[in-house]
């Protein structure tokens, strides 16, 4: 230990000897790593799996149950109609299933209060167990039927009442009376894979939850995508909307086993065949059962700018690495005589390598500091310039450890060649001058 502290002291002396090149090396490494790390943060968070234990068991079934004959674009619609979902939920195969969409509304305790704009997730009972949503108070609706009951998030309960224990309280949702049946605990599923259409997976969780049937009864239209493929009047959601080709629903089923998945595929196949035979849709069948893991890329919602930037920042990191090793090579070469002297005094290569390790450690230390600063600034800048990704700017332990390792590896690489060259260089020459 004492020996290692000595090595550290020697390293520090070496830095003092030529502070400018050393500072430049650190600066360049920090900037390269920081910029790379800032982008890597977004890349990592955007591609993270919010439900690792079941994201391969959750599926979004899509099918061409539409009243039009497709000519050019035969992809299935990205959203389902109410009747599509009804047909899809008749199989009994999934362990759980929930249809959903989101809408905007205004919430208040009574008519005298100013309205609070809220985003409403209109969905079914299983939503909360499908995505492991934690409950703080109350209980989820017992079935999927219409009821004037809402479930609040912790934040919206606190915003409205200043407390969370508000089960049973009455509210006005767009001037209609609803009762609070439950309050959720803090919950944030990022990326929000259950709603990946139109880049919605980048958004925050919704503020309140309303039963699907009630949503249709109250004539809430989707704020993300509503498409009609016939003459359905979208002001008549509770009647025409339930029967016509008004598509706005996403539907998630949990299929735990390969057998279940196979059975569900077969069920979808049969359903489409039957419907086609009954003349209810003229398009070619094109059934899709997309796993939650693949939903973002299926919808083409991958953040291409972050991807492009990943390539660019990686190149930049390489440039910085080259540059820093260039600088450090120069630094070592100007110190080469000292290496020769140490060798003459009996230092073995491994002892010199230990000295180098101390150099690496010090450099890594400074670099980590610099990289964290640059990375933080980079993330701030990126949320400013690409605000769509602002929810994906957080560092977690994995990321920080990765940065730590990367900084050590980079410092090592930067020091490796120069020190090898210095310690393997011919011994005699440097001592003569």
């Amino acid at each position, binding site marked *: 230990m004492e020996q290692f502290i000595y090595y550290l002291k020697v390293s520090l002396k070496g830095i003092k000897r030529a502070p400018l090149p050393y500072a430049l090396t650190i600066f360049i490494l920090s900037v390269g790593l920081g910029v790379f790390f800032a982008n890597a943060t977004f890349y990592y968070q955007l591609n993270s799996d919010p439900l690792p234990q079941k994201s391969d068991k959750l599926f979004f079934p899509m099918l061409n149950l539409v009243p039009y004959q497709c000519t050019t674009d035969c992809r299935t619609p990205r959203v389902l109609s109410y009747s599509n979902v009804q047909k899809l939920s008749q199989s009994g195969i999934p362990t759980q299933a929930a249809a959903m969409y989101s809408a905007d509304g205004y919430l208040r305790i009574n008519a005298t209060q100013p309205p609070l704009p809220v985003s409403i997730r209109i969905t079914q009972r299983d939503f909360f167990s499908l995505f492991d949503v934690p409950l703080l108070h109350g209980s989820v609706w017992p079935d999927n039927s219409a009821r004037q009951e809402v479930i609040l998030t912790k934040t919206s309960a606190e915003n409205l009442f200043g407390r969370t224990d508000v089960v049973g309280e009455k509210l006005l949702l767009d001037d209609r009376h609803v009762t609070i049946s439950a309050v959720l605990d803090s919950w944030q599923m990022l990326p929000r894979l259950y709603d990946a259409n139109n880049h919605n997976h980048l958004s925050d969780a919704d503020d309140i939850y309303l039963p699907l049937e009630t949503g249709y009864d109250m004539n809430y239209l989707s704020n993300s995508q509503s498409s009609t493929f016939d003459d359905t009047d979208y*002001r008549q959601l509770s009647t025409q909307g339930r029967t016509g080709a008004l598509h706005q629903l996403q539907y998630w089923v949990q299929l735990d086993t390969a057998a279940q998945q196979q059975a569900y595929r077969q069920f979808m196949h049969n359903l489409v065949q039957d419907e086609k035979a009954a003349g209810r849709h003229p398009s070619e069948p094109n059934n899709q059962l997309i796993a939650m893991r693949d939903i973002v890329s299926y919808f083409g919602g991958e953040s291409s700018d972050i991807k492009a930037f990943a390539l660019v920042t990686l190149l930049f990191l390489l440039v910085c690495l080259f540059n820093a090793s*260039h600088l450090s090579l120069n630094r070592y070469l100007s110190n080469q005589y000292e290496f020769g002297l140490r060798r003459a005094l009996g230092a073995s290569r491994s002892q010199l390598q230990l000295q180098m390790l101390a150099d690496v450690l010090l450099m890594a230390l400074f670099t980590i500091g610099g990289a964290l600063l640059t990375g933080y600034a980079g993330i701030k800048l990126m949320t400013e310039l690409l605000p769509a990704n602002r929810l994906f700017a957080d560092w977690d332990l994995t990321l920080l450890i990765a940065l730590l390792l990367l900084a050590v590896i980079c410092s090592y690489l930067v020091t490796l060649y120069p020190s090898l060259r210095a310690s393997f260089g011919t011994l005699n020459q440097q001592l003569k001058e």
Partner: protein
Amino acid sequence: MSLYLLFKGLLSRKVVTILLLLQLAMTLALLLNSVLLAQQTHKQLNQPTGMDLDNIVLVQLKPTTASLRVYPALEELLNRQLNAVSALPDVVAAAYANQSALLQGGNNGNVYLDGEEGRTNQPSVPMYFVSKEFFRVLDSQVLQGELPQHSVSLDNPVRPDVVITQSLAKQLFADKSAIGQQLNRGRLAAVISDFYGQRSGDNVMYNSIQVAPPYGVDWGYSILLRVTPGRAGAVRQQLDQVLRQVEPNIEIFHIRTLAEQHQRLYRNEYGLAMLLTILSALMLLVTMVSSYSSTHFHALKRQQEIGIKRALGASKNSIFIELLSENWLCTLVGALFGVVLALLLNQALAQVISIPSLNGYLPVMTIMALLLCVTLATWYPAAIATRISPASATKAL
């Protein structure tokens, strides 16, 4: 001083030179592609929109009570709001619309000639339901037919007449007269000049407009105002208050000029180009550091050689030029590799984002910029090196 000797000098410092070349090449590659992307964004932001962006103000709003979102209360609210904002000084014209222009996506649908859906269908054409002043707000030119003079309900047995933009008319009817033709949305009454509708559509200039109160305002609606040139700021300040006086139960999402709306529409591209520009600046800085340090160390190590040259009669200038030329040569060789690398990077980037391909003069420009930076960075250490005294040649011998 000969090129041959310069090359030889570079080759003798293999590793250092290779590092420098690689880094110069990568810098150039990144720089080139950043400039490309920035150029593209600039072009996108400057493409014609068919509207006087600075002098049209957009208010996006929604009633907060359900009763105000159904007819006839809604139509009455719309008219009250229009009357109030029209009375403001500097407002030339005001109209409501179910949606604004210059959006990513919104309310849109198929447009085709009745009975000829298969042949003429145009998908995702924005559908505007507006008050009749809408065309005055946009300052549209009427190219064929006449604009509808009265608002007609969409539920009317005879659907309201349709106005389409020039590009869409050309696509649907080629050069034939379009007026009076039956579209799936109604009878075509007029063709107006193009304006930028929705970015996600097949053609941003395709639009269809009907003078009718919107179906519903679940997604909110827009009030668009044409103002006296230069007065957008003044009008904007009063809008919030005026609209709330008319009806307090509204939420105003935003009040912007269409110029701002246009910028937001390309915010992502702008952000990416901006980031790449910042990165390019950092790269140039890094390159400058490396040119600086390489000259500095090189001169330090060759003090004796420079001393000998000075003793043999080399002027300060020739030493200076020699050191600069070494860096120039290095930069040029690196830049050549860089152009190749830039092409590869361009192709790789084209896989994930839309980026134009490289053209002829841009590489030359960026190489010049790179040379300038390298020269600036080399200047100081090279100048220092020329101060080495000819006497130092004899010292160590």
